[in-house]
């Protein structure tokens, strides 16, 4: 498992394109994104609802809706192998074993007619068929202990647990085979704030203890600051800005969308009457703009933004896809953008 390929990256996504095809329309959910996750590191995938975050996660596990979801192009390289080319049977051995996922809504993620012990045990049995019944039970109890549930509750059914407890069970299922990569898809969105903090702390703690790499999908920048090493900001199926947490939180240049995201968070130190939300809505994924996807909502939109896709601008580990910074000297960030005024 520890084979070193590409300098210790566990996952690399190259130019991934995913569409949902129905009889009526083609939804371009993910439009050529690339990023990588280093071993033992946590990468945050940030963006508003509909940006394609969950679609990206589902394509990694090969769980896109069978008939409609299609990967058009790109590679997902996990431990040296392109997941998209693996036969179903091999992919099945990766799922839940090497890569596992914590879902957004714990209320519906557990099967109501089986005990939680059964559901955790099932994952263990699938990937460790050699274990005896007693060993599986023992492992189930260990896992429950690990996520802070009294092991004797393993005979209970999901409806007997609260939302936060259910999410712990889901996490126990995800971690019971000690995966190399954990995908957490907005794991705390459905929980109330106090429980959010508990669950996040628990995920972070378990990740550190088990040495798991993680893809943290969220729209909450607070969670990113707390848990992530690297961040990708996604908008309309594209990554618009990527870098380390420091790049995103304290870099001096940002994609206007990232600035908008930060503008939507209340700041306790600055007195302001209102939050500054990003105006407008995400573009229709069946009919994306020709130029930069963010251009219709961008305050700094220029002529070129409407007609041409932006190039990458790099500053060390920090990458921004925006016309504002094109034509600048890359890699040192000394030159200021020529024009930082709005054309309209």
């Amino acid at each position: 498992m520890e084979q070193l390929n590409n300098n210790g990256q566990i996952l690399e996504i190259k130019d991934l394109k995913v569409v949902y095809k129905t009889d009526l329309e083609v939804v371009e959910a993910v439009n050529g994104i690339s990023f990588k996750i280093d071993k033992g590191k946590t990468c945050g995938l940030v963006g508003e609802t509909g940006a394609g975050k969950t679609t990206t996660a589902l394509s990694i596990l090969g769980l896109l809706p069978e008939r409609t979801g299609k990967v058009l192009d790109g590679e997902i390289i996990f431990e040296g192998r392109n997941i998209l080319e693996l036969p179903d049977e091999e992919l099945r051995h990766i799922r839940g074993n090497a890569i596992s996922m914590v879902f957004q809504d714990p209320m519906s993620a557990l099967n109501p007619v089986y005990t939680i012990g059964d559901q955790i045990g099932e994952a263990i049995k699938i990937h460790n068929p050699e274990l005896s019944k007693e060993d599986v039970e023992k492992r189930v109890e260990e896992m429950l202990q690990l996520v802070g549930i009294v092991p004797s509750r393993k005979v209970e059914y999901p409806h007997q647990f609260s939302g936060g407890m259910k999410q712990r069970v889901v996490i126990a299922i995800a971690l019971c085979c000690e995966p190399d990569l954990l995908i957490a898809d907005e794991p705390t969105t459905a929980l109330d704030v106090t429980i959010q903090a508990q669950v996040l702390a628990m995920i972070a703690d378990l990740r550190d203890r088990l040495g798991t790499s993680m893809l943290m999908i969220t729209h909450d920048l607070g969670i990113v600051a707390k848990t992530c090493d690297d961040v990708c900001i996604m908008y309309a199926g594209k990554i618009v800005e990527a870098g380390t947490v420091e790049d995103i939180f304290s870099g001096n240049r940002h994609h206007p969308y990232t600035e908008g995201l930060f503008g939507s968070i209340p700041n306790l130190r600055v007195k302001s009457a209102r939050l500054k939300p990003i105006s407008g809505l995400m573009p229709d994924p069946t009919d994306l703009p020709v130029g930069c996807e963010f251009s219709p909502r961008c305050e700094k939109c220029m002529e070129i933004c409407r007609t041409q896709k932006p190039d990458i601008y790099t500053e060390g580990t920090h990458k921004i896809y925006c016309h504002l910074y094109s034509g600048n000297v890359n890699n040192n960030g000394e030159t200021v953008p020529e024009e930082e005024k709005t054309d309209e």
Partner: protein
Amino acid sequence: MYKYIIKRLLFLIPTVIGVTFIIYFIMNITPGDPGRAILGSGVSQADVDAYNHAIGYDLPFLQKFINYLENMFLHGDFGISYVTKQPVFNEIWPRYITTIELAFLGMIVSTVIGIPLGIYAAVKQYSATDTVASLISFLLAAVPTFVLGLVLLFCFSLKLNLLPSYGIPDWTGYIMPTLAIAIPIAAQNFRFTKSSMLDSIRQDYVRTARAKGATERTVVWKHVLKNALLPVITQIGLNLGLLLCGAVVAEQIFSVQGIGSLIVDRITQKDEPVIIAGTILISICFTIVMLLVDIIYAFIDPRIRAKYTKKRG
């Protein structure tokens, strides 16, 4: 759970009383009388009245109702048929056995055809099998029993001469009535199972199961099916309950002596004891079937089980 079952069984007593009352009441407000029906139109009104008096038909309906309850609960006596002068129980029971046989055969056949096909069609949605099965089920669910019965009779009795067209002389006599009863219900079961499966397949917990690395077979048979079966079981139970009321049309077409045709016959002759005893028997069976459905439900779904057993767990 046992407490609940006993409670439900005790509830049978008011059900029986209610059913008896309703039938006496309806009989009372509908025209006609057994004397005229049995003696025919050529007899004088005085003779008819005398006949009605002799069998106790002319008593006030409340009194008849109370007498009947008394006889039934205290002496286990369901009365004597006005028409045949036989104890009602002897008349009803052999015919009800036939009805029960047909009802269970119909249920088994319709379940065995409908559910596996429904599961298959849901798993392979949009496949050729799914399309064909859905189309046929559409058609069969829309065909009335008497048309289906006549077509069966025409093919297997008249043309091929394979199956008896009249009554149940031996086991081959069961085939056509069972099919006539089972086919529309099988079509219904198919559609129900398919939609319930499709509904269940799209649930988040199924995605969780897939994300665990479960095989497609485990996903379908373990995670989807158990959840999808709940509404299907209600459907099967309801249909069985209805079949236990007698399949009047199928009984008529195939000349099968079931409870349905018996009750219809006797309604025209105002044979109150037979009608009432038959209806009571049907309502008891119906209640028991519904109770069984509830028990199976609780067995499958822990959330419902929790409702019956008061303790937390």
